[in-house]
């Protein structure tokens, strides 16, 4: 009756066991480390640190539930939860991928008019020790400024994050069809639009 496979990594198992009454979404996201199960996604870390320390930033950080939005051309964005399991804070200073000739790390902040706007973050994403940075539609994200090829649902895209200690972390995430996340980026021109609100009305032309 039960022929269920038992190729379970410990981290994945922690995901499947979290169906408890007290589960909260945040806890789920945090617990679901490496839970890109089912898609053959691989996660690898490259130690770029020169000091031989056992805990370079690239080794301390892992992504959970990562994905990138499908798009025909132009812009897109990547999301997921970056968890720093190390003992010191880390800072993501840049990201690269073959899918886009240019990437930026974006944050969402409130402008003087009280509107939420997005802009390139200065100094990169800081992930405190033991904390998780959520990259999500309407919030922080990795912006793909100029796609080299269409991103089609179900494809997988590799990214490399570089940290302030020059270590790197590589991960692969699937492409998902998603109507929101129409993050636009209008350089220095102060007419940015944020995220998912009102995206359907006018956001399609420049859909990220």
């Amino acid at each position, binding site marked *: *009756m*039960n*022929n*269920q*496979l038992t*190729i*379970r990594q410990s981290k*994945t198992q922690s*995901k*499947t*066991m*979290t*169906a*408890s*009454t007290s*589960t909260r*979404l945040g806890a*789920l996201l945090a617990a*679901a480390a490496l*839970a*890109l*199960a*089912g*898609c*053959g996604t691989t996660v690898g870390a490259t130690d770029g640190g020169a000091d031989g320390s056992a805990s370079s930033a690239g080794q301390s950080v892992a992504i959970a*539930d*990562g*994905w990138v*939005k*499908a798009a025909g051309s132009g812009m897109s964005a990547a*999301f997921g939860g970056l968890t720093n399991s190390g003992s010191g804070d880390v800072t993501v200073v840049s990201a690269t991928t073959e899918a886009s000739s240019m990437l930026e790390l974006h944050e969402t902040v409130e402008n003087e008019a009280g509107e939420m706007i997005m802009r390139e973050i200065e100094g990169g994403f800081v992930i405190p020790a033991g904390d998780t940075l959520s990259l999500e*539609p309407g919030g922080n994200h990795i912006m793909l400024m100029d796609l080299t090829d269409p991103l*089609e*649902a*179900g*494809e997988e895209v590799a990214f490399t994050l570089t940290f302030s200690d020059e270590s790197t972390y590589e991960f692969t995430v*699937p492409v*998902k*069809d*998603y*109507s*929101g996340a129409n993050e636009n980026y209008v350089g220095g021109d102060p007419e940015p639009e944020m995220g998912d609100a009102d995206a359907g009305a006018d956001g399609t032309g420049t859909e990220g």
Partner: protein
Amino acid sequence: MPAPGTGAGSGRGGMTGSTRRQFLLGGAVAGVGAATAIGADHALNTTPSTEEASVPLNGQETVPFHGTHQAGIDTDAQAHGLFVALDLLDTTDRDDLARMMRILTDDAARLTQGSPALADSEPELALSPARLTVTFGFGPRFVARAQGEAPGWLKALPSFTVDRLLPEFSDGDVLLQIAADDPLTVAHAARMLLKDARSFASVRWSQQGFRRAHGSVRPGTTMRNLFGQVDGTSNPAPGTADFDQVVWNGEGWLAGGTSAVVRRIGMDLDKWDRLDRGGREQAVGRFLSNGAPLTGTNEFDEPDFEATTPIGFPVIPEFSHVRRARSENPAERIFRRGYNYDDRPAGGAVSRSGLIFVSFQADVARQFVPVQTRLDQLDLLNEWTVPIGSAVFVIPPGCSEDGFVGDTLLTGKQAPQ
């Protein structure tokens, strides 16, 4: 079955729930005396302890997703079932199919375990899986696009004289069977899956069905249809060799899979109303009270087709449904897992209801078609029923955690053992 009470204090809702449920079920079977004892057990254990502080929520119960077979077939049928057929876009090729099934598999794997799908825009709706299962099926065109070898039976059924089929309830390239004990869970899962399928396919038809709500009747109780009949008594029991033989196919990329026949059967309740109880029972060959054959007293008694009335006619008429559905050939059996539907009445009628007939069998041509052919030729129940939709799908095997549903067809991967 684990020893009663071992789930106490384990802190995981799903397992605590099943263990406790089985204990309660056992108690119910034992009767009044047992109920008293359960009360005693409860009294003994609630006074001093902090255990079992909360009632387990059935919303937290999960059905494993990965495995040799897809879930949702030998799973005790959930209260709510949604059947959606998709048409592949003309541009969707073999590589696209693999991408689509990767994505849909990942969605299903997460949602069935109570986790939001990736890019789930309503993640809170995923947190009560309520035994959600998602079962995928492929129509003839899917297998053709996948350049796979299609089983000979993967095609529209032969046309039966009773059929009045409507295209809006027939055929399709992909089947999604989405079932759970919570309708909101079903709706969310369906939406998530359809959002992720839209780059590859469009919705062809959708049929929503229901059974008794969770907790209304004992788990495993044979369903009743809207005629009031006990429907599905002769099913093989999941977990038995009999079931395995009836349901699972062992051939090639399909090993561990099966087939699904989904037929929408309109039931004329207004006409049925004009028939009294005795007539209804003769039409089926079973008592309405408990589903026992007219020659027996209990639901699972074997019908005695030889028994005659005092003036010599069969007690179970030769034109009754149970007689006609029964084959002398033991190979001609199927596993039914249908759902009721109850549409908005139209045209002055007070009901537009019926059955989403769903059967699983290893081989449609060998098992289903002979049965339906007999029913087409003679079945008194045909007086009140009319098939208005029909579709056949191959149900691929389940997948492992590093695979996806359909990978044995789309990548040549070995089926999980």
